[in-house]
Structures are given as structure tokens and as C-alpha cells.
């Protein structure tokens, strides 16, 4: 009977083998998982090519690309020069960063008094996360929110305990706007936080915030909207208070696109422009510049062309900010440089 069970399993597997199709495997960032699973589903129906994407985290994605265990990777924080050099040595090819969509990080909070739409400035935000501002009715916060009555309550900071692209975007912003943060804490996918409690994943942070009166933290925009959390408007570089939204994020990307480097490894936090939301960033697919496998190379190139054009139309309904047209065009050019055997 034991043998029968194994035999049964074996039959299952040969059943599947008989209609094998081209399947490409990718792994990486958690943030774009929802959009990518939509894209790959639509694309499979269109062309029959299966793209299997698994969200193992940005760090994991970069690692797998370096080791060559996947056909493509994905990350929210760009690969650094050391990692690119390592990939070049191990895989014998350059790795391209192709931006796909944009994500925003929102500052979310919980006050039992149900005060919505609090306004924050970069200085105040940095001071809160440095542990310098500890009360909700601190003068610096009251100054920005004169129309509201803020309670005399301690501020409880909540941050991510795991390595994450969301953290990267958030601390990258704090580094740009606050010198003390830049020197004392720095940036990375996980940093040593001066104050606060840790939560695992967006859901962990949101869960902590929901339970603690007076808590403040940061999560992805999509997560905050889906879970109806209160979030703050941020003062941008031009001095306007901007509520995070898909439009204000795409606007930030558009305003920064003039500075887009050819390898797309760019940070757009603290963007120029009067309507730009300041805490946002790209998420990238990581692909080889030279493919050895003709079928896979061709399939991936065709997919990327589709993604940065038609694919962008699926972004908004899933709460991702689509690329500005100008950036899509830049991507097109980069995708054309990918080579594979037999490419004309």
C-alpha cells in the first residue's frame, strides 16, 4: 500500500510532464507580488508562457540572481556595486534593473480620538523616529496641525523587524532630510532603530499599531488603503503637504525622471515638484543582459516589452503607481539591449 501511494504520486507527476510548457522562474520582492501574479496570469492566457514568481523578499531575490538559481529576480532596493560585480563574476553577465511600478510608504498612526489626516514635516518625522519627540502634543506637531486637538500621549514608534524594501525607502528618505539620521542610523533594508517596537511584515507593523493607542509606523500604501488605516500627509521638498496617492507618487517619479541614470538605480525620495509625495520608490525586475538560453531570453524580452506598456494598465486597480510614460520609454530602450542567441 505504501508502494501504491508512491506509485500514485509518480503517476501524478508523469501526467503533468506530458504537457510541459516553457516555464520561467523568478523570485524576490514581496511588495510587487500581487501585481506580478496578475501580470503573469494575464500573460500566460495571452501567450501560454508561464512565469512563476515567488515572493521570498528583496534580499533573497538579489541572492538568487547572484547564484543564478532563477531566470529573473525582483527587488525594491537596487543591487549595490559589490553585488553587481559578484553577479558578473559568477554569472558572466551584467544584471539590468528594469523598473516596473512605484510604491509609496505611508506614515500610519493610531490615536483613539480618531484624528484623521495629520500633517507631518520631514524634520518632525525624523525626530519622532530618533526618539527626540515623544509626545503627540509636542509643540512641533501642534504647530503643523493647528486645526486639531492633539492628546497628551506618548508616541510609540513601530518599525519593521525584518529586512524589507519598504524600510529601505523609508530610511532612505530620512537620510536625505535629516543629517543626524544620516550619520547615526544610515540606510539599508534593516537598520538599528534608535527607538521603537518591531513588527514582522506590513501586517505585523499594522497589527501593532492597531493595538497601541498613540502608535506611529510605516507601511506600504496598498496595505494602508486596504486595511483603512489613518495615514499622514507629508510636507514635500516644495513645502506642500501631500496626501499619499497613486497620482502623487507617479508625479514624484515624473518630476525625478530627468535625473534618471542609464542603469535605473535611482532613489526618488524627497522628489522635486509641488505635487510630489516624498516617500516613494521604484521596484525593479532583475534580468541578465546576456541570455544563454534562446527560448527563455526571447520570452523574457517580449514579456518586459509587454509589462512596461500594456502591463502598466493593471497597476492602478491593484494600488500600485504606474510608471510615467517617459520612464516606460527609457525602459523600452534598455530592454532592447538584452541579448540572446539568435537575436537579430
Amino acid at each position, binding site marked *: *500500500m*505504501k508502494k*501504491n*501511494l*508512491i506509485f*500514485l*504520486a*509518480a503517476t*501524478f*507527476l508523469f501526467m*503533468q*510532464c506530458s504537457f*510541459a*510548457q516553457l*516555464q520561467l*522562474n523568478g*523570485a524576490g520582492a514581496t511588495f510587487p*507580488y*500581487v501585481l506580478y*501574479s*496578475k501580470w*503573469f*496570469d*494575464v500573460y*500566460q492566457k495571452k501567450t501560454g508562457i*508561464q512565469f*512563476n*514568481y*515567488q*515572493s*521570498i523578499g528583496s534580499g*533573497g531575490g538579489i541572492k538568487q540572481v547572484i*547564484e*543564478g*538559481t*532563477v531566470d529573473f529576480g525582483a527587488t525594491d532596493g537596487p543591487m549595490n556595486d559589490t553585488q553587481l560585480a559578484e553577479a558578473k563574476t559568477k554569472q558572466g553577465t551584467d544584471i539590468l534593473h528594469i523598473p516596473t511600478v512605484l510604491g509609496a510608504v505611508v506614515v500610519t498612526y493610531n490615536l483613539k480620538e480618531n484624528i484623521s489626516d495629520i500633517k507631518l514635516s520631514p524634520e518632525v518625522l525624523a525626530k519622532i523616529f530618533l526618539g527626540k519627540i515623544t509626545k503627540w502634543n509636542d509643540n512641533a506637531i501642534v504647530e503643523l496641525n493647528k486645526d486639531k486637538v492633539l492628546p497628551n500621549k506618548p508616541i510609540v514608534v513601530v518599525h519593521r523587524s525584518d529586512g524589507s524594501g519598504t524600510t529601505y525607502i523609508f530610511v532612505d528618505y530620512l537620510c536625505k532630510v535629516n543629517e543626524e539620521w544620516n550619520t547615526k542610523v544610515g540606510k539599508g533594508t534593516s537598520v538599528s532603530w534608535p527607538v521603537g517596537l518591531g513588527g514582522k*511584515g*506590513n*501586517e505585523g507593523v499594522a497589527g501593532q499599531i492597531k493595538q497601541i493607542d498613540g502608535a506611529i509606523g510605516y507601511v506600504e500604501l*496598498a*496595505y494602508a488603503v*486596504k*486595511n483603512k488605516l489613518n495615514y499622514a500627509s507629508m510636507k514635500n521638498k516644495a513645502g506642500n503637504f501631500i496626501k499619499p496617492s497613486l497620482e502623487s507618487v507617479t508625479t514624484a517619479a515624473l518630476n525625478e525622471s530627468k535625473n534618471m541614470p542609464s542603469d535605473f538605480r535611482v532613489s526618488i525620495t524627497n522628489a522635486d515638484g509641488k505635487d510630489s509625495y516624498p516617500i516613494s520608490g521604484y521596484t525593479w525586475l532583475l534580468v541578465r543582459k546576456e541570455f544563454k538560453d534562446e527560448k527563455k531570453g526571447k520570452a523574457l524580452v517580449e514579456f518586459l516589452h509587454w509589462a512596461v506598456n500594456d502591463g502598466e494598465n493593471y497597476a492602478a*486597480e*491593484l494600488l500600485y503607481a504606474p510608471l510615467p510614460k517617459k520612464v516606460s520609454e527609457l525602459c523600452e530602450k534598455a530592454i532592447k539591449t538584452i541579448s540572446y542567441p539568435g537575436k537579430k
Partner: protein
Amino acid sequence: MKNFYYYYRKYKSIFIYILCGMSALIAIIPLLLIFYHTISLGIAAINWDFFTQLPKPVGESGGGLANAIVGTLILVGLGCLLGLPVGIMTGIYLAEFGKNTFGNIVRFLVDVLNGLPSIVIGVVAYSLVVIPMKHFSAYAGGVALGLLMIPTITRTTEEILKTVPRSYREAALALGITQWKTTLFVVLRTALGGIVTGVMLSIARAAGETAPLLFTALNNRFWHTSLDQPIASLTVFIYNYGVSPFEDWIAQAWAGALVLIALILLLSLAMRFATRDKYSG
């Protein structure tokens, strides 16, 4: 005075009896709660599609986890291919021939292996199989699960074989049956029921593991194309869907958990039934 002692001892007995009964109740309450919670939340997402369809992206209703159900069965099957022979034979060695230093070392190492966190086993399988093969695969997942199963199977096999009475072995040998035949057809046959229990325990553990699969079998939103490619599993889907902010995915995660429990239960029953005979208890 005699009367007092009589009642004192009688009530003490009743008191301890009730205490034990309540402890037993407390021990099964979490299990009942888990059953209740999983069934009440999971049943809603269970329908025919769940068993026959591939996963759908967010925003599209329907879709199932058929590939994950098959994937879990295949992964556990592959795990058994590695874990059963190695585990059972190591158990036989330890019980029948392992009363020496080498046996003690093996016994100790198997216990250490049993205590290793499953994520460590996953990392081992990653560096042993995934990196040399250059891609994630069902084989790598099978190796990870197989390694996990070995210690449980080994130790239960050894313990069960030790309970087979000495006289059985002596009787067989006295009849002129060779040592290997005695071990295989007398000792092992007698102990079959217990060994099956050990195997089922290890299968249940392997089927419920997420950590060793994350970096070995990865996961797959489609049917696997072959065994040297990534394959879906219920546990990784539960893990991915459970933490997502989308209601239909969370519902499917609960349904997946329910199916996983049912699958293990069915498998256990089937194996119990298949190995039930007059020799085993």
C-alpha cells in the same frame, strides 16, 4: 479515626482523579479550537474549483490550489523515498546491531538531527541540491523533507523493534531461519504497526513544514513542468496568502490549512487500514 483516614484517602483520590481528567481536557482543548477555527474559516472557500483549478490573481474570484495539493503529495512522496528506507534501516541497525560505540554515536547524532530547526535543514538542502543544480526543484524539497523524516522514523523503529520479545527471535533462529530473514520477516513483521505509526508521524510533520521548502521547492503558481523545476506546496501557499492584505487570499489560506489537515488525516487512516493485519497490534 479509621473512618477519617478512609474518607481522607477516598477524597484525595477523587481530587487527583478530577485533576488528571481536567489536565487531559486542557491538553485537547487547543486541538479542538484549531479544528473549530480552521473548519469555520476554511469551509467557505472550499468548493470543487479549489481542488481542480490553478490559483487566480487578486481581484478574480474562484481559482483553487489544485497544483499545491498535488505538489504537497509529490514532495512528501519524494521525502518518503529518501526518508523511509534510510530511517527504517537505521532503526533496524540500532535495535539489532547497534549495541556498541558506533551505535551510540549514530543514536546521538540522530537525536541532534531531530532537534535541528527545519529552516536549517532547508538551507542544507539549498546548498546541497539547489546551488549545484542551478535551480530550485521538487527534488531539493524532497531531500529537505526526507532529511526531516529520518530521525523520527529511525527512533520509533528502534524503540518498537526493542519491544519485540527476544523469544520470537530465538524461536526463528532455532528453526534454522537465517538472521536476515528473521529480522525481515519475523521482527519487522511483528513491529509493523509501530513502524507505521512512526512513519505517519514523520509524514504529518513533513507535510506541515513550510520553512524547508521556501528555499528548495520554492513554490509555483502553475503546474510543475518536471521534478527538477519549482513545485507548489500547500504550506508555502498558506504562508504567502495568510500574510496578504486580500480577503479572498486569506480565505484560501484557511481552506488550504483545512485541506492539509484533512489530507494528513486521510493518509494516516489509509496507511493504518492498509497495514492492519493479525500480526500487528
